[in-house]
């Protein structure tokens, strides 16, 4: 049973939808961040798999940059969360309603 590109892509998709579920159902911002990490990682798998099956290093390069971006996101995001937490003493998504139209 040969493992092909499509296997990886399907796996990536499944992980991505798990991430989407997390994004949609999580109300705690920290846990929401976890869900976004899942999204990024699922894409990384797809990149690496495509890179492997096409013999092209571009996929891996993109995966690196995704990781870099994820790291920055965590740094800035956590900083913002801390500021918010200091102000409001919670990090509940439902409490952030200043953008109500």
């Amino acid at each position: 049973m040969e493992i092909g590109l499509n296997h990886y892509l399907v796996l990536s998709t499944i992980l991505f939808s798990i991430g989407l579920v997390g994004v949609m159902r999580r109300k705690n911002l920290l846990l929401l961040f976890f869900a976004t990490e899942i999204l990024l990682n699922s894409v990384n798998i797809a990149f690496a798999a495509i890179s492997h099956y096409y013999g092209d290093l571009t996929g891996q390069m993109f995966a690196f940059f995704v990781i870099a971006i994820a790291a920055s996101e965590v740094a800035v995001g956590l900083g913002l969360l801390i500021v918010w937490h200091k102000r409001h003493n919670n990090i509940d998504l439902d409490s952030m309603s200043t953008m109500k139209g």
Partner: protein
Amino acid sequence: MELYLYIALFSPLVGSMFAALYGAKPRTKIAGVVPSALLITSLIASTILLAHILSTGEIVHVEMMTWMATGNLYIPFGFIVDQVSVTMMMVVTLVSSVVHVYAIGYMDHDKGFNRFFSWLSAFVFSMLILVMSDNFAGLFIGWEGVGLCSWGLIGFWYHKESATWAANEAFIMNRIADLGMLIGIFLVYWNTGTLQYEGAFAAMQNLDTEILTWMGIFLFIGAMGKSAQFPLHTWLADAMEGPTPVSALIHAATMVTAGVYLVVRSNELYALIPDVGVFIASLGAFVAMFAASMALVNRDIKRVIAYSTLSQLGYMFVAAGLGAYWVALFHLMAHAFFKALLFLGAGNVMHAMDSELDPFKMGGLGKTMKASMVMMTLASVALAGIFPLAGFFSKDIIIEAAFVEHHFIIYTVLLLTAGLTAFYSFRIIALIFHGEERYKLFGFHPHEAYKFMLVAMSPLLILAVIAGSLKMTYFEMVTAVLPATEYHLHSVTTYWIMTIGTQIFVILAILYAYKKYANSSIKVPDGTSKMEKSFVYKLLINQYYIPYSYEQYLIRPYRELSTIFWKQIDMKIVDASVDGIAGIIYGTGEKTRAMQSGNLSTMLKWMVLGLVILLSLAVVFGLAARHFDEIKVILSGLGV
């Protein structure tokens, strides 16, 4: 000379602006004096131009600036002072100067004094644009400008319902005619490629008669509206709602003659289409008779004079239609003098009688108002065409021209009309100034007008008397640009018989009028006399039921149609669809507002929904691209 041209043209505008500055202020003399002074400046500049043209015969032609230059269309603000327009300029500036000065006295007690002078000077400016422009576009600007000012002045006492109605009537009727004029101008541009008189008339020589006929007809429709020719004549009598100086200036001397001016100006066009000329002449003769008949019985002095104006305009159109352009222009000029004088005299009478207009309630005013009586009588004599006053030279020559051109029906009509003219003019004079002093029954205390008003009128009086002697000078000047057709009867005997016959006929008419209306048995008509019950009288006093039928058969159906369009089409279709679009947008906003709850979690869900939609689009289009050929087959099978 250019400087004088600009002075003549723009001083009235400056005067108008100056008076407009005081528009909202209480009455102040300076708002009347300054425009009058500026108008006199304009008059002096015009006189200098006239002298220049008389002595050298040189035409002053300037191009102030470009107005429009798009593609092949080039319209400059160009002005021309040639023999024709300088005549008009003289008439306009002279009469308006007199009227301005006169109005300072006449409007003395009016609240709208400042506004009046602003409008009046603006009118003079527009009229000068009209006559001085060297192209049809400029003429049209002036044309609309005088229409607007006329509207503002007829409706000057806007708190009076009848005045606003008359103003709107005049304006709307003129719009109808202006549409024709505009079509005419478009035709000229379409076929000749230019709107400059010079180029356009030169190009017309090579055009089809059919096209030229249409041009002539449409331009004449414009002239008909402005000069109140049948069937667009009703506005002129109603325009008498305006202050009397306005009637004298606009509705006797200048604006209404713009139509004649247009025909004279386009003489090269009308010379190519004699059939249209005959039509113009016939219509003119008809209007002359028609208006004169209505003037016979009317019981409103201003309206009588207005009908008389209408009748004289008919004469002018007869002359213009028969190709005697210089005669038309000459009669225009002479008519402007004595008709303005007549109106101003009527203004004096009105002033004296507290705005009473019924001559049957006057009588015997000659004792208190000697100067006015002399002026009005002389003006009427001039109007009737008695030798040696102005009317004799200008009007009789039109009648002669009709005879010489072998249009005997027109000739007969004009001759009869001359008798009618004399009769109704002196009917008024007799009723106002002679006979019993009936005004005492109504408790009026007449008084003569201010001295300076009478002095202001005197130039008109002098011109009305001596204008005839200027005929040959004028003829030599004007024929430099107009066709020089002289009208001489073949036999001298016929000429003398005709001239003396006409004179006697007219004098008889005058004497009859005096006999009938100057005696002491005249009573204020109360609708019981035999004459007043006759059919002809009723027909005439109701103006041939034309205003009534317009109201009944044109205005009412139009109003009903408008109501239907308003209620059914505008409200239910146009408005409803516009409102519907607004409603849909508003409703969508209202419904989708819930999306913007401010809850980030909800927004994330919407984001995912958007992602799903995008993905499905990708799938659909991807599939469509893959199976393009099959889809094409299916679509062609469906007949798309």
